[in-house]
Each structure stands twice: as C-alpha cells, then as structure tokens.
C-alpha cells in the first residue's frame, strides 16, 4: 500500500510544472525579473519591459499550455508572426509623432542614414561566425533600433530567430540610456557637447499634411517590401495632422496602441522559454546586437562631425547618435547628454529630426536588404 501511495504521489508530481523545471527556467525567470526591476527602479521603458519581463517569467514556469499551440500567448505571438502587430504599432507611432523637426531641418535627415553603420557591422560579424546571410541580415537590423522593423525583417529573412532578435532589439532600445552615453562622450569633446543649436523654423500645417502622403509614395515606390510599415506609419500621421479626425488619431495613438503594446510584450516575452532561448546562438545574437548599437551610436556621431567639416553652421555632434531610430529614446539621450554638459542646452527638438529620419533610414536599409536578398 505504501508503494502504491508513493507511485500515486509520483504520478501527481509528474503532472506539475515542477517536475519539468530545470536551471534554464531559473535563469530566464531571473532575466524576466531583472527586466521588471529595470522598469520599476530605473524607469527604463516600463511600457515594454514590464510586459516582456512578466511574460518571460510565466513562460518559464513549465506545465501550463500558455505558450503551446492553442495557448493564450501562442495567439498573441501569431499577431507578430503574421505581421499584423508591427504595422499596427507603426499606425500608433505615426499618430503620436510630430514630424515637424524632420521637415524643418532637412540637412539633419542624413544622420538617419549615418547612424546605421551598426546594422552592417553586425551583419558582417554574424556571417563571419557562421550564420547564413539571411540570418545575418535579420540580426543586423537590430542595429536599426526599430522594434517593429526588426520583427518585420526577421519574419521575412529568418523567422526562426524572431525570439532572440525581438528580445535583443526591444531590450537594447530600453537600455539605450546606458549604452549610448559612453560612446557619445568618447567621440566628442566637452566643447562640442556644449554646442547649442539655433531655433528651428516653424513648419506649417500644409507641410505636415503633405509630408505623410509624399513620403509614403516615395518610400513605397522604391521599397515595396516595407510598404506595410511605412503605409501605416504615414496613415497614422495623416490622421493626426488633418486635425478633423481627432477621434481616430486618439484611438490609433491611445487605446489601440495600448492594446497592441500589451499583446506585443506578451508575445515577445512568451518566446523567452528556456528550452529555445538558453542557447549559444542566443548569446551570439545578443552580443551582436550590442555591437550594432555601439557602432550605430558611434557612426551617427562621426557622421555629424564629418558634416561639420562642410557646413558653415555647425551642428552639435550629439545629434548624430539620435539618428538611431528608437523614437524618442535616442533623441532624449542626446538631449540629456548635451544638457549635462551645458544646462542651457535643450537639444530635444533638434534631436527629434534625425531620430525620426532614422525610422526611414531603418526602413530603407531593411528594404534594400530584402531586395538584394530577393525577398518580397
């Protein structure tokens, strides 16, 4: 009878998640907890890290069907896998964004290309250590610091790497206030960081209405591969700028964006199950992503310094690192670093110009990559 009881208890235990728990789950629960800590204690992108961190923790408690086909998180992930969520995020982003700083100073848009060297350093590095060229392209796009674009390109080039790439992209975006400043300070002098910028011209309502229409036509014509994202970005912006459909703009940038953000963070966190995540490949991708961000920051600053060699009215080189697409985080970092060097320096509005241009820079880089690799 005693043996029977023990057998019964063993069978009961085998039904629980505890029987399948391994050290990898513990590591990932710690990773998820760290994300939540960074969000709460350091205020690093709480809108992203709280959801991702919590879903990561829950996905590493074995036994439930949350992440299995038919489970709750599985359906959230389908929104990502079927490329529904990224365009909807861009709809919300467009509805919340004022492209005035980009329109007001067209010279600064070149920084939106200059800050993307990191994409290609990571791409070449990934190929050198054994990834395929398609996988390397997907890994490289982490350096564009654009979450929806990273997801979009990865699903086209290397969908099996989506968990690692999306986690790396969103995590590094949230950690930009840690990653960027040391690189920015290394490449600039205090005098350069103190440089103030003159006030920008006022952009008219007509310009702001025409902008999304013109950009959608130009980018979609040359890079149809990224049309879903650019179309929704520009539609959201048009809804905002025409002023007469305020209800739609508020929904796109408000309630809808919140729903999509919750779904996206659950989807990303749910991919962080230890079985597929605790691998050497993940570590390689995470390291390559960091390299991409560092080189992107550096190349942006250096592009600004090169521009200053040819410009009569110099620009603060810290604007260069804002060319990384992470809106508005990179612009905010440029502003903070400049403000710390000179409390009279308020760069945020100027930094938004290259920051917004970086969104198009990433889309263009991604579009060219898809075209050269023969992917529609």
């Amino acid at each position, binding site marked *: 009878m005693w043996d029977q009881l023990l057998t019964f208890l063993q069978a009961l235990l085998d039904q629980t998640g505890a029987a399948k728990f391994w050290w990898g789950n513990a590591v990932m629960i710690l990773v998820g907890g760290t994300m939540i800590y960074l969000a709460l204690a350091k205020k690093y992108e709480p809108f992203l890290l709280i959801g991702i961190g919590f879903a990561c923790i829950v996905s590493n408690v074995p036994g439930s069907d949350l992440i299995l086909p038919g489970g709750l998180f599985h359906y959230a992930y389908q929104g990502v896998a079927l490329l529904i969520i990224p365009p909807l995020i861009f709809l919300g982003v467009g509805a919340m964004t004022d492209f005035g700083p980009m329109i007001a100073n067209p010279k600064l848009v070149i920084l939106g290309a200059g800050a993307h060297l990191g994409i290609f350093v990571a791409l070449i590095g990934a190929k050198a250590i054994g990834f395929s060229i398609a996988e390397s392209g997907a890994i490289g796009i982490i350096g564009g610091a654009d979450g929806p674009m990273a997801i979009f390109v990865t699903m086209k080039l290397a969908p099996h790497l989506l968990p690692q790439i999306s986690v790396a992209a969103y995590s590094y975006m949230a950690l930009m206030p840690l990653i960027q400043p040391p690189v920015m300070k290394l490449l600039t002098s205090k005098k350069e960081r103190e440089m103030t910028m003159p006030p920008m011209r006022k952009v008219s309502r007509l310009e702001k209405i025409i902008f999304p229409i013109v950009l959608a036509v130009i980018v979609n014509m040359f890079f149809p591969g990224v049309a879903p994202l650019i179309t929704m970005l520009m539609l959201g912006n048009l809804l905002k700028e025409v002023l007469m459909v305020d209800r739609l703009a508020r929904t796109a940038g408000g309630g809808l964006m919140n729903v999509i953000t919750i779904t996206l963070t659950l989807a990303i966190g749910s991919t962080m199950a230890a079985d597929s995540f605790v691998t050497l490949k993940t570590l390689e991708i995470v390291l390559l992503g960091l390299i991409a961000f560092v080189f992107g920051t550096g190349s942006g600053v250096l592009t600004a310094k090169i521009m200053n060699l040819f410009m009569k009215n110099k620009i603060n080189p810290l604007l260069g690192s804002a060319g990384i697409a992470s809106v508005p985080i990179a612009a905010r970092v440029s502003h903070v670093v400049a403000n710390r060097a000179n409390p009279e320096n308020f760069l945020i509005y100027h930094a938004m110009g290259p920051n917004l*241009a970086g969104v198009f820079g990433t889309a263009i880089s991604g579009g060219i990559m898809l075209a050269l690799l023969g992917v529609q």
Partner: protein
Amino acid sequence: MIPDTVEGAILLSVIDFFLSFIIIGGIGVVLSLFPYLNRLGEVSDHDLKAGH
C-alpha cells in the same frame, strides 16, 4: 543575387549603406522644397478642427 559568404555580406553592406545615404539624401532634397508649398496658401488649424 548576393552570395552566402562573408564577401557577399560585405558587398550587401556596402551597397545598402551607401544606397541608403543616397535615398535619404533624396528625401532631404524633397523636404527642402517643402517651404515652397506654403505659396499655395495657408491651411487654418481652426478650419480643420471645425471639421464636418
């Protein structure tokens, strides 16, 4: 189109990086023409907000 080699990765990167400069630069040129749009007339925020 691009070979799956390190050389192919370098080629892809060089083409992509410089082509993106050209395209973004072109967008910058288009944006520099935007002030001329204001010659077409002014759009009033008040009129737009009045809606339909």
